[in-house]
C-alpha cells in the first residue's frame, strides 16, 4: 500500500511533527509496509461484532465533582521551559 509523500506530510502535520524530507521518505515507506501487514485484518468478517475499547468491563465510576488544589504550585511551574511569574510563556499564538 503506497502512501504518497503529500499524504505522509499531511499526517505529520496533524501529528505536529516537523519532519525532514529524509524522514518523510523513510517513514512513508515503513508506514506503507506496516499498513500492508495490518490489512490482513480485512480477511476477517466482523459484521455484528462489537468493538472492545477496554478488555475488563468495570462500568463508569462516579465521584463528587470537587476540585482539589495541587499543593505545590512552584513544583509544577519549575518544569516550564519558559515562564513568566505563574504563567507558561509560549511564542505568539496568532500568526500573521
Amino acid at each position, binding site marked *: 500500500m503506497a502512501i504518497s509523500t503529500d499524504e505522509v506530510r499531511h499526517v505529520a502535520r496533524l501529528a505536529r511533527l516537523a519532519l525532514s524530507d529524509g524522514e518523510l521518505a523513510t517513514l512513508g515507506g515503513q508506514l506503507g509496509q506496516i499498513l500492508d501487514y495490518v490489512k490482513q485484518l480485512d480477511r476477517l468478517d466482523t459484521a455484528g461484532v462489537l468493538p472492545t475499547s477496554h478488555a*475488563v468491563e468495570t462500568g463508569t465510576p462516579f465521584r463528587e465533582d470537587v476540585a482539589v488544589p495541587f499543593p505545590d504550585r512552584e513544583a509544577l511551574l519549575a*518544569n516550564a521551559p519558559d515562564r513568566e511569574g505563574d504563567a507558561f510563556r509560549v511564542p505568539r499564538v496568532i500568526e500573521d
Partner: protein
Amino acid sequence: MSTIPVHEWTLREAADRIRSGGVSSRELTEAILGRIAAINPKINAWVTVIPEKAMAQAAVFDEMQARGESAGPLHGVPVGLKDIFCTKGIKTTCGSRILHNFVPPYDAAVTERVLCAGAVLLGKQNMDEFAMGSSTETSFFGNTLNPWDPSRIPGGSSGGTAAAVASAMCFAAMGTDTGGSIRQPASLCGVVGLKPTYGRVSRYGMIAFASSLDQGGPVTRTVADAALMLGIVAGHDRRDSTSLDLPVPDYDAALGRDVKGLRVGLPKEYFEGEGLDPQVRAAVDRALAALVAAGAEAVEVSLPHTEYALSTYYLIAPAEASSNLARYDGVRYGHRAEGTSGLIEMMSKTRAEGFGPEVKRRIMIGTYALSAGYYEAFYGKAQKVRTLIRRDFDAAFQKADVLLTPTAPTPAFRIGEKTDDPLTMYLSDIYTIPCNLAGIPGISVPCGMSSEGLPIGAQLLANHFREETLLTAAGAIERAIPLPRVAPFKG
C-alpha cells in the same frame, strides 16, 4: 547458614534479615550501591541512581528499626523503578529526550505503594523510549546490555529493569507491560516478570503509552518475591478510573498450593509458527513435563485469532499512543526547540527534536489510523478483532485453568540485529501481545537455558483476576527446574 553474597539474596531474604536485625538497611543499601557502581557502567540498566537519597532513607529505616517500628513488608530493602513511574523530586525521563529533564511534582501510585511498604529507592531504570520497543535500543540514554551476554539485548521495553534484577543491582523492581514489556525482558534475562490483570495495579502517575493496554507489575528473581511485590502494589485507586475495585487476595497463600488437577492448556497456534526456536520449544516442553509430574493435566486448546493479534496491537497501541503523546508540546515541561517563531512551529519542532525514530513511527501510524476516512477501516476494525481475540481466551478458559506458552520466540538476540526492520522487531512480542489485548494476567518464569547459556522463559496466562493461579503454576515450574537466579556478569 547461607554463604551467598548479600546482593544475591532474594527480596524476602533481604527483608527477613533486616527484620531480624542480621543486617541494617544502610549495610544492604551500601552493598547494592557498590554493586551498581561496579557493574552499571557496563550494563547501563539505570538512567538515574540516587545514592545520597537512598542512604539517607536507609538511615531513617534503621532508626525506626532501633525504636522497634516497621515501615512495612519491604522495610529497608533497596529496589528500583522503571523510569516510567513518576517520582516526586526525582527526574523521570521515560527513556526520552523530550522528558530528559522532567522532575515530577508528585509520585505515581506504584511509587507511593512501594515506598509506603518501606522500600529504599535506588533510582530509575532504563527503558525503550516511551516503552516503545522490545530491546531497550530505542532509549535516548543508550541501550542496556544483557548481563548474561553483553553482546545481546536484554529485551524491552523494561530492559533496564530486567537487567538490573538479573545482575543483582536491586532486590526487585517494577516495570510496565503494554504488549509484553515486563514478560519478554524477564524471559530474556532469566528472571520472573508478572503482568497483572488490566486494572489490578493503578496507572496513576505511570506515563501513558496505550492506556487500554498498559499495566504495571513486578520483576523479581523468584516467584515468591513476585507475589510479595504484587500484594504491595495491587489494589483500588480512585485516581485511576479503570482501577479494579476488588479485594486483593493473599498472594502468599497461592505459593504453596498444589497443581494437582490443574488443567494446563497448550494453545496450538503458539507452537505452530515457524519463528519458534527449537531450544525454546524444548524448554517449554520441560516446564509442561514438570507441571504434569506434579499432577497437572495437559489439554490442547485453540486461540484461532492468534495470527491477527500483532496487526490488532499495531493499530490500537499506536492510535492510543498518538493521542497520549500529544501532551508533549514544549509548553509545560520537557524539551523545547529553540529559535522558532509561532506556537505551531515551536510545537512541531519540539516534537521532531524530542522524539526518536520509533516513537515518531508509532505516532505517525496512530495518527494515520485515527484520521478522517481511515478510522473505521483501521482503528474500528482492530477494536472488533480485539473482541474476537478476547472471545478466544474466554473459550480456552472453559477448558483450561492456565495456559502455557513460550514467552518469546527466541532467546536474547544480538544488539542491532533487528533495528533496521520494525516488523521483525515487533514479532518478538508475538506470544505476549494477545494477553494485553484480552486484559488477562500473565507471568514469565525461567524454565531453561540455551546451549549458548542464554535464559529461556515460559509464559503462563490465566483468566481475569486469577494471578493466584499464575503464582501457583509458576512456583511449581520454578521448584522443578532449578536455575541460577543471578547472571554471572562480573563487569
